């Protein structure tokens, strides 16, 4: 009896990866991921899932990191995340993951704000509030590099994103690094200056849909359905007609703002509305350079695990070549399915 219980519990704990016909996808609120919620609400995901004769459940998780942790633990087949988190959470955790859809990159959506100072150099010696080990931290590191400073020149205070705006309202907090919509809210406060943002490192903070590589290999149908649903949604939301405005209004409302607020966020996001643009971006040699820089940052901060001897410990496969150890590739950029969408073959 005890054995039976044990076996039952184990089978729940161990993720299974063979061919199936029902899948779970997790997403969380962010300007570039709102289309998932819209696609699920409008039945676009269901339409594509039916076309390939599978079931796809799209689940919104309110805590971004928790959604990635759940994905890494095997609770979801695919999940939205940034390129850096894809490397440091699932890939570093040994879960071979593939960037199926490269949705957008941050083009001003992440930024550094100083209170009462107007140059990034002034950040030296200050306490800087940010979500430690997040893309904000990466952005700060890249910004500091650009003005010849080091992280040891300042003090990083880990601050929860939910409390960032309230924290900035206090006198103690003079420097923050954060993302939209918090960024624009903080920038609107008195004496606030944005001194550095992600448009100065374009293409380095990438938002994508990541899928378990084994699930992908066993279930190409899932990938086709997801990519199909995504680009259909892109076509709707990028339209300048009434349907496009209605889609953007719905996404804005779902992310707690309105049409104008959502469009302002879209303006600082480089969305790949066309599959061919996403394919071109994925195929570019710059992606490999970006991932090298992300891997080096992650290694410096101990995010690749204590066993990692160097930044190339985890191999990253991009169409322009592999960065790091080719024997342990755990993160792959695969433009194959986006190409199918670009060629209209889904």
């Amino acid at each position, binding site marked *: 009896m005890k054995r039976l219980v*044990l076996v039952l*519990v184990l089978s729940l704990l161990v993720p299974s990866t063979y061919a199936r016909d029902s899948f779970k996808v997790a997403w969380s609120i962010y300007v570039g991921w709102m289309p998932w919620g819209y696609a699920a609400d409008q039945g676009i995901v269901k339409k594509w899932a039916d076309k390939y004769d599978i079931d796809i459940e799209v689940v919104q998780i309110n805590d971004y990191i928790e959604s990635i942790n759940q994905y890494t633990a095997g609770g979801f087949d695919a999940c939205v995340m940034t390129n850096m988190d894809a490397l440091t959470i699932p890939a570093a955790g*040994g879960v071979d993951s593939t960037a199926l859809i490269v949705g957008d990159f941050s083009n001003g959506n992440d930024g550094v704000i100083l209170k009462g100072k107007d140059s990034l150099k002034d950040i030296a010696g200050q306490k800087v509030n940010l979500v430690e*080990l997040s893309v904000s931290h990466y952005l700060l590191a890249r910004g500091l590099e650009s003005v010849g400073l080091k992280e040891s020149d300042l003090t990083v205070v*880990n601050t*929860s994103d939910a409390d960032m705006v309230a924290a900035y309202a206090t006198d103690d907090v003079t420097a923050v690094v954060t993302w939209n919509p918090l960024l624009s809210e903080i920038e609107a406060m008195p004496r606030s200056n944005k001194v550095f943002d992600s448009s100065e490192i374009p293409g380095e903070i990438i938002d994508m849909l990541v899928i378990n590589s084994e699930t992908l290999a066993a279930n190409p149908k899932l990938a086709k359905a997801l990519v199909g649903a995504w680009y259909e949604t892109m076509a709707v939301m990028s339209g300048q007609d009434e349907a496009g405005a209605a889609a953007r209004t719905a996404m804005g409302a779902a992310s707690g703002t309105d049409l104008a607020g959502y469009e302002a966020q879209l303006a600082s996001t480089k969305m790949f509305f066309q599959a061919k643009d996403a394919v071109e971006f994925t195929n570019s040699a710059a992606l490999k350079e970006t991932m090298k820089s992300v891997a080096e940052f992650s290694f410096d901060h101990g995010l690749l695990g204590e066993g990692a001897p160097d930044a190339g410990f985890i191999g990253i496969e991009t169409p322009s070549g592999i960065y790091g150890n080719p024997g342990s590739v755990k993160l792959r950029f695969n433009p194959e399915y986006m190409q199918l969408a670009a060629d209209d073959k889904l």
Partner: protein
Amino acid sequence: MKRLVNLSPSRPAALLFGLIPLLLVLGLYIGGSNARLAENPNDKLLPSFAQMGAAIDRMALQPSKRTGEYLFWKDTQSSLIRLGLGIGIAALIGLFIGLLTGGLPVVNASLSPLLTVISLVPPLALLPILFIVFGLDELSKVVLIVVGVAPFIARDLQKHTMELPRELLVKAQTLGANSMQILVRVLLPQIMPRLIDAVRLSLGTGWLFLIAAEAIASTDGLGYRIFLVRRYLAMDVIIPYVAWITLLAFLLDYALARLSRALYPWHYKEG
């Protein structure tokens, strides 16, 4: 036939019965961990004991590469100072208010409704206000614990003060004691063991607020570390930290219980 309600296990048997569920949980964990690690040697969700041992070694026994500090002890020290200050101040405030409201009906009439209202407000929901008034540094973390715990202690002591036998007060008065003397010499000693009990009961809440405060804005602390390494699913660090917090909480509780028995043996006499 002996009824089940009258059947109590002998001491060794009781020990064994107590151990079985613990061992079962441990066994399930090891089984689950092994199964997941067999599937994926880099799995982070259920680390093996060897992995957790390595994490403890790294955090507690070796200086951090970046700052040269022993992170585990630094975190423990910061957290215990915050918790100690928070609970200590809350106990003082609670004792003061509880004694006055319980002992002086005039004070009770004016403070009691406010106290009831405050004790029902969830402090975490008011965080932005706490930040703006007390800043983001150590002070606001201590204040969060105080705000969360003091009303509970105050109400508990108020209740116990009011429940003390009326005869004690009458007797003291016939012996010529004034109000001050009754408060300090009769009521205060009577409720001291109650204060320690209330502190023991509120320690759990205190830890909760401490960890919440550290998760919000911090540079060190046990709660800070747990929420930080959660970003890369380092359960090999989180599980030992949680075990350590449990142990610390147990030791604090035990120490307070012993302290209470040592200081106020009369409180524990039967009859």
